[in-house]
């Protein structure tokens, strides 16, 4: 009896301490959440603030957290190609799309063929190819811009959209090969063997078994290549002439120009960043799955 009494006091204290601790943790995480919210949204908010300004010139913050008369004038001017410097908006948007889609197609094609040969056909010396991909993956792309500029002249691709596509495919396909190899390990090779027994050729294996089963990984690779090409600034800015460039480049190059119609520029920037966000959100399940795979290291994850 007396033992129980002796214990009751410290236990009550411990419980109170526990409760206090929980309240403090909760308050702390709410505060951290608030800070993160402001931190993440500030530049995005800045874009909106400028884009919704009815006046075209000023980028002026006058203490109002929201523009007093928000207007879609900037967006309208962009869409109707009336905004100064953005007369080519749709053309440049089209260029971005063209480069993005072709980069995507070629990366998926080249990457899937190579990783099929390496991981499903038991080609000897395949580690050479993996090493090549790893090496390319590790080299910062910006370090190769000067030689790329020269060799594109040499290859007769200067001022050609294909120069940018070639460069983007070069830097997107290593990742494609690596992630596809990782994913291919989840598909049992008995499937291939069974198809072999039925007399399937290598091409049939690739088309009928490999491609359909790899769809989630191929989707990730496609998104990756598309977003990489869409978002890049450096390569199109160097390899393309000003009259036929991508939207990303125009926006970057005018950043120091005070005369630019800034509400329209920011409206164009918002229109430009939306498609990748939409695509990534649409495919978030695939992306999340590969992120997990990346974090875990596929070797251990195995078929689950």
């Amino acid at each position, binding site marked *: 009896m007396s033992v129980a009494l002796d214990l009751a006091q410290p236990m009550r204290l411990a419980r109170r301490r526990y409760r206090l601790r929980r309240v403090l943790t909760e308050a702390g995480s709410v505060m951290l959440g608030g800070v993160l919210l402001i931190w993440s949204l500030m530049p995005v908010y800045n874009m909106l603030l400028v884009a919704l300004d009815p006046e075209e010139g000023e980028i002026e913050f006058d203490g109002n957290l929201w523009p007093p008369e928000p207007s879609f004038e900037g967006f309208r001017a962009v869409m109707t190609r009336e905004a100064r410097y953005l007369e080519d908006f749709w053309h440049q948007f089209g260029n971005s799309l063209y480069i993005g889609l072709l980069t995507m197609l070629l990366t998926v094609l080249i990457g899937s063929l190579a990783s099929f040969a390496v991981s499903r056909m038991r080609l000897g010396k395949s580690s050479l190819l993996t090493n090549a991909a790893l090496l390319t993956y590790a080299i910062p*792309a910006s370090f190769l811009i000067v030689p790329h500029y020269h060799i594109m002249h040499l290859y007769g691709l200067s001022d050609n959209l294909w120069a940018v596509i070639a460069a983007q495919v070069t830097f997107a396909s290593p990742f494609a090969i690596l992630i596809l190899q990782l994913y291919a390990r989840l598909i049992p090779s008995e499937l291939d063997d069974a198809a072999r027994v039925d007399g399937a050729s290598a091409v049939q294996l690739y088309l009928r078994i490999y491609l359909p089963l790899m769809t989630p990984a191929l989707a990730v690779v496609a998104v990756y290549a598309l977003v990489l090409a869409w978002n890049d600034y450096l390569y199109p800015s160097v390899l393309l002439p000003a009259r036929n460039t991508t939207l990303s480049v125009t*926006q970057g190059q005018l950043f120091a120009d005070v005369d630019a119609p800034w509400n329209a520029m920011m409206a164009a920037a918002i229109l430009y960043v939306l498609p990748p966000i939409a695509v990534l959100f649409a495919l978030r399940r695939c992306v999340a799955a590969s992120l997990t795979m990346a974090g875990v290291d596929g070797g251990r994850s195995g078929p689950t």
Partner: protein
Amino acid sequence: MSSTQQVLAVAPSASGKGPRRPPGHRHLRSSDYRWAIAFVVPYAAVFFIFVVYPLGYALWMASKPSLYADLIADPLYLPTIVNTLLFVGLGVNVKMFLALLLSGFFMRRRWWIRALLVIYILPWLIAAAQACVSFHWMLIGEQGLVDGLLSALFDINGPIWFNDRWLGLGSNIVAYTWKWMPFWTLILLAGRMTISRDIYDAAEVDGAIGVRRFVHVTFPLLANLYFVCTLLSTLWTLGDFTTVYLVSGGGPGFSTEVLATLGFHYAFDLAKPALGVAAVMSTLPVLIPIVIVLMRKLQTSEVQL
């Protein structure tokens, strides 16, 4: 192409291992062999035409020793090295450490934390060029959002950020961290999710909670992943062009340039391509060891949790 870092950077962690091949299964029929070669040829062609040849070309361009004498003689070069060290050192380590801590925060199972995660990864989804332009205008001086808020809320006259080397450099680092921290948080979050609940339960019985749990349980389990991520991030930050070029623009007076933008400046503004390549090549003493360690790590798939 700073945006090379994308969706699933650490993915190669398992490459190089390939499927475990049963022995005696190695012989391909000759028609298959031809097909396999044909399948590999497109990538091999891309690799030789657009990686090996430009790389060799770059090495050849930068092989003249006199170029390096020119570099040292340029008063811009040494400050740029200092900037690069600061940009990479802080930009990588602060970002990675915060990402490590925040990944723990995002492990908490609350509906509002999950909703916050969606907003938190927004910077990663926004194209780097547009995000950097927005950063530039946010900090443009008294008309910018930041100084405007400072004077409206606290009655402080904010500085003119891009008139000062250290403020400009700091702005670049903050913008870079803003852009890429969400990505690494996601990777580390994925890493944390694989740590089994049992380990934590066992640790809790032994009294490891809070900071002690982080130091003695979580971090040792994540250390390898963290190390590989840091190396990859170092490479990519060294090569980052967009942030410096578009946030501070290298200014005032080229005082916030990093090697990637200085090389660009030499090659395309001053029409000295060889000097530009040489400036970039001066990162090789750092680059090569990191690439070697990284390739070993990724090949032997030591990246295990």
